Structures are given as C-alpha cells and as structure tokens.
C-alpha cells in the first residue's frame, strides 16, 4: 500500500532563506511518525509546507495520491489533513465552542459536527466546562487540548501535531499523548508528530526522523532511534 503522505526532496523557506534544503519522509496509513530535531531544524516549516501555508520551492508533497502543491492551503483540509499548529494559534476572541466549530469549517453535516463536538467534550471535559469562554482566556494546557480538538473536528485521515507538549505540565503531557495513542489505535488515524520532547515522542511513535538544519539525517523504527547512542547523546540528554 502506498504511504498516505509522501514528502520527497522538499525545499522551502521564508524570504531569501531556505529553511529546508532536502527533506524526504513518508507516513503510512495507521502510523504515528515523529520528527525530532533542535530549534530551527525545519520541523515546523515541514508541517507548514505539507499544509500549504508555506509554498514548497522544490520537491513533491503527495497526500492520498494528490499532489498538494496544486492545492491552496484552504482546500488541503478537505482532502483529510488537519494540523494543530505550533503555538496553538487558538482564535483568542472566539469562544471555545466557536473555535471547535471553525475546525469543522469545511464540513457540511451539522448533526455530525454536533456529535463530534460532544465527542471532543468527552475526550477533554475541561473544554465542555469552558465552552462559552474566549479561547484566549484558557490556560496553556487547555489551549493545547483545544488546538488538538479543533484539528480533529475536520475528521482528518492524517493529523499533523506541532509541539503538543510545549510548556505544559507533565500530567497534561501524559494526558495528551494518551489521546494521540488512542486516536491512532482505535480510529486508525495517521499522525505526523513534531516534538522537542524526543523521548516521549519516540515512545508513542512507530518510526522517527531526525532533522538537522533542513535535512533528514537519520530515520528508523522508533525504538531503534530511541536506542541509538548518538541520538541519545544529542536529543535525549545522555
């Protein structure tokens, strides 16, 4: 079976600078793949290029057989790809409920949307308690839950997660990673996960890629990456 997402020879950047020189990776259906790397390695740019927010300068991005370079960002969501972006990017003056509704913007099935909102409230009960509050007033952890729930509202086949653990208390990180694993195992959702918390990410992922200054320098099964002495030294603080 062909991979659900295939990135090949991707080059992308901002202004005169290329942030990505040559990134190639694949995500198979039902797989959790993680990208680890230092600040500025190009992890976020890779995700933004897949989502169409940053336009690739060279290379291919194929999702479910579609060449994503021919789609504007707002149409990529409809193909079944959603992102919970770096820094959460919650709409601060929309309520929690409205934020979730925005996640389902491309969907045209109000009963299904209402049912999914209830599902998100089941998954993250705190969002239900705060549903009438402005998104900007939530705590960091609550905003992260909202960002993930908002992305799930699009019913994606592939979920892109950018730094879901950043700045959060360990308890909440555990909860969020529990949700990710659950979505993958019980709903077969494919996940491309970008994380600074490499240990946590490699424990939940099937495969891992290491990104260094815009290039993939290492990739293997997650447990192999986790046990590689160089990776342990560089990214796991040993």
């Amino acid at each position, binding site marked *: 079976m062909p991979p659900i997402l295939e990135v090949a020879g991707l080059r992308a950047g901002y202004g005169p600078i290329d942030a990505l020189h040559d990134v190639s990776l694949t995500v198979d259906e039902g797989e959790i793949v993680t990208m680890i790397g230092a600040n500025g390695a190009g992890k976020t740019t890779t995700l933004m290029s897949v*989502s169409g927010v940053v336009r690739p300068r060279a290379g291919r991005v194929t999702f479910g057989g579609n060449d994503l370079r021919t789609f504007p960002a707002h149409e990529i969501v409809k193909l079944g790809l959603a992102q919970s972006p770096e*820094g959460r990017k*919650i*709409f*601060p003056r*929309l309520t929690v409920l409205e934020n979730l509704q*925005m996640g389902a913007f491309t969907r045209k099935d109000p009963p299904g949307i209402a049912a999914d909102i209830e599902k998100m409230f089941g998954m993250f009960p705190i969002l239900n308690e705060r549903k009438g509050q402005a998104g900007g007033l*939530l705590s960091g952890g609550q905003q992260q839950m909202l960002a993930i729930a908002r992305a799930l509202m699009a019913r994606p086949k592939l979920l892109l997660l950018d730094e879901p653990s950043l700045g959060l208390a360990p308890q909440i990180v555990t909860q969020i990673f529990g949700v990710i694993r659950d979505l993958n195992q019980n709903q077969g959702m494919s996940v491309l996960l970008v994380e600074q918390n490499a240990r946590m990410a490699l424990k939940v992922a099937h495969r891992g890629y290491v990104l260094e200054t815009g290039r993939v320098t290492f990739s293997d099964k997650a447990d192999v990456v986790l046990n590689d002495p160089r990776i342990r030294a560089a990214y796991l603080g040993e």
Partner: protein
Amino acid sequence: MIFAADSAFWQAFTQQTIDGLAFGALIALVALGYTMVYGIVELINFAHGDLFMLGCFLSLTILAAFGLGGLGFDATVKDPSPVYVAVILLTCLLVAMPFCGALNFAVDWVVYKPLRTAPKLAPLVSAIGVSFIFMNVGLFWGGAQDVNFPNLIPDTNLMSEGSGIRFTYKDAMVFGVTVPLMIGLTLFVQYSRLGKAMRATAQNPTAAKLMGIDTNKVIGLTFAIGGALAGAGAVVYALKVNTISYTMGFQNGLYAFTAAVLGGIGRIPGAVLGGLIIGLVRYYGSAYVGETWAGALIFGILILILVFRPTGLLGSTTREKV
C-alpha cells in the same frame, strides 16, 4: 445659561442629543468600514471616505434619473408623492450599496491583494493613491463646487408643537436605515458561518487557513460589506444634509476614522460607540462651547482617551496568552 436646569435647557439638550445621535449613527456606518478592514488586514483604508463620497454622487445621479434634477438635468418632477420618495430612497440604497461594495471589493482585489505580504506601508500608500483617484472621479462627476442635493425628505416635525423638540422625517430616515444595518451586521458577524470566518481570519490568518477558510475570499467579503455600509451611509447623508462635494470624503472620512480609533480599531461595537460619541461631542460642543470648537473638541477627546486607553474604549487592554 448652562447651569439653569430649567425646561428650556433640557429641551435644547434633548435636541442636541437627537441631532448628535443622528449624525453619530451616520459616522458610525462609515467607521464600520474602516474598523472591519483594519481588523482583518491591518490596513487603514484611506480611500474609504472617498468611496462614501462617490456613493453620494451616485445617489444624485439616481435622483436625476428619477426626474428630480441635479448634475445639469432639469427637475421634471415637482412635489413627489411620499410613495415616489420611498421608491427613490429604496432604489438609492439598492444601487449605492452594491456599487460601493463592489468597488471596494475590486480595489482590494486589484490594489491591496497583491501587496498582502508586502510591508504595511506599501498598501497604506496605495490607499492614499486610491483616495486621490476617487476624489478626481468625484470632481469629474460633480464638478469643483458644492453640489445641491434635492431636498427630498421633508423637514416636517414629527413631535407635537408643545414639546419644543424637533424630530423630523429626516431623522427618522437616518435611524430607520442605520440602526437595522448595524443590528444586521452584528448578527451576521456574531452568528453566521461567514461572520465567524471573518472573525477567525482577523484573529489569526494562519490558523484560519489551516481550518480550510479561504482567507482571501473572506477579506474580499469584508471589503464588500464595509463598502456597502459606506454606500448606505452616503445615501442617508446626502438626503439629510442636502449638500455634497468631491472633498466631503476627507472630512467625513476623518470623523469616521477617528470614531473607529476612539472605539478601539478592529472592534465593530467600538466603531458604533465611537461614532455616537463623536456625533454627540460635535453637537454638544457646537451648542455649549462654540461652533468653531467642535472639531478641536472631538480630537481633544480622542487624544485624552488614547492617553488613558491606547487601544480605544472597547479595545482589549489585556494581552492574550500565547
């Protein structure tokens, strides 16, 4: 005597309040266009006042077509019946609103959209350029002199003789057009799918794209709605004030822009509040301080409010968590 709280004082005060609110409601309608556009693309659309001016000339052209004279045409209809006047008012609104909306949309598409990622100064200077182009179109359309706009709506007082207060058909028309439009806009932005998409795009364009929102379409829609409101404001202004000129966009645009800043630029209720405050200050100022001081008072209050609340009256004062 200001301090003598007799009935004559309260009559005059009520009168200034009515006139101030009527003028303020008009300014608010134009201010909404400034604030909506700023809210979504952080552009101060300097051409907005001149768009409003073009709406006035378009209304005059419609009146001429209905045989009421103006723009060099002779008036063939004398003493139009109330039904005829209502038809004209409705026609003006139904033509000027789509016209100004479409024109504003087109200007965004042609001039501002290619500059979306350019430094903020580039679209700003372009907006000043568009303002001059509009002004020259107005000059060509109506000439360099003040143009008389037919006095179609009677100044008949609707209040009883003894009340000492004037509330005319014109005032009723001003509130009858502006208030429903403002309520309609609020409901649209608050509850409709596209209205929510507008707010989302204004608050975080990148996230909006990730939600599948076509942000360029939403921005275009914002320009169109803001333009349509300016068109409606133009019709009402021309029918109320009865004098228009190609330079009117500057002065009224400045009032409207001030209203938007006063209320908190980017905030829709702020534009309405700002407009009403400016209307009231202008009329109270004229009555109790002196006609010549009205302008200075408006901007004095603007400065005072901005010193204590730099984000405007309804602008957010707390930083949102990132």
